């Protein structure tokens, strides 16, 4: 996807959805998983990913675990209880948004 502005508003929801499915993940893993799912179409940049993760952590939606793996420290993120509830709400909002976008972009499909 060339225009990264299009997914920026949904980045937090994308992260939360992935964490809901995978339990806990680290930054690089999230970027690679998104690339894999979208077959390379969506490329989350490091400059957008880490500020988003830190914001969600500050909002108590994510919890952090630090472990030593392969001779280095790795920071894992997982959803908190509040984060799990919030994921459901945000996914519903995103689905509604996508439905509205489809109606605007392709009105025939909505009938």
């Amino acid at each position: 996807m060339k225009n990264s502005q299009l997914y920026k508003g949904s980045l937090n929801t994308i992260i939360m959805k992935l964490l809901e499915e995978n339990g806990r993940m680290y930054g690089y893993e999230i970027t690679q998983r998104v690339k894999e799912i979208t077959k390379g179409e969506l490329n989350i940049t490091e400059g957008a990913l880490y500020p988003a993760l830190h914001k969600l952590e500050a909002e108590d939606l994510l919890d952090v675990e630090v472990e030593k793996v392969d001779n280095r420290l790795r920071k894992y993120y997982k959803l908190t209880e509040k984060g799990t509830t919030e994921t459901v709400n945000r996914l519903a909002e995103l689905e509604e948004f996508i439905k509205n976008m489809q109606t605007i972009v392709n009105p025939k499909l909505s009938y």
Partner: protein
Amino acid sequence: MNLTTEQLDLIDRYLEQRNLIFLDFKIEVKDHIAFQIEKKMEENENDFEVNFNEVIRSWEHNLSPKYLLHTKDVKFPNLVVQQLKKKATAYSVLTLLTTIVLTIFAKIYFIQYLDKNFKYLQCLVVFICFSYLFFRRNIGLQKLPTSFSYKIDCFFMPVLVTLFYYFLIKTVLKLLEFFLDLQFSLNFLS
């Protein structure tokens, strides 16, 4: 292929050279860069130095040194500065609004009472303490020392911002009073 301790130390030194001293960013960026290099080494079969330089180039924008407004003598990586600025702006707006509301409230209802019973500076100190405690409670106390709480502890930004706004508003109000008095006097004379 996993990187050796020496190769990981090289990434560490590079990040420290870029002044990436914050724990929350440093752990993640180091791990991310290490992964990227390992992947490239598997794909390209080049040696560590070639892949290291290639990966570092892709991080150039995020790690380029930038100034923070209140740390003119120290530069931090762009990735950190952008995040700090966003949070600092949100906090500044909140502080400004609170200060305006309290100033107007005091001006309308309590100014005579305050003048009689409290000294101006005592009120200001109480307000600053509450503001700082509120800020620490909501943002500063996190499980890991993040870049934001670290900067707040270092520079007492909430206190500075509150002081700045309070005195700014106070000065503007004094100037307004002065010009209104002046206008009234001129009208009276004419």
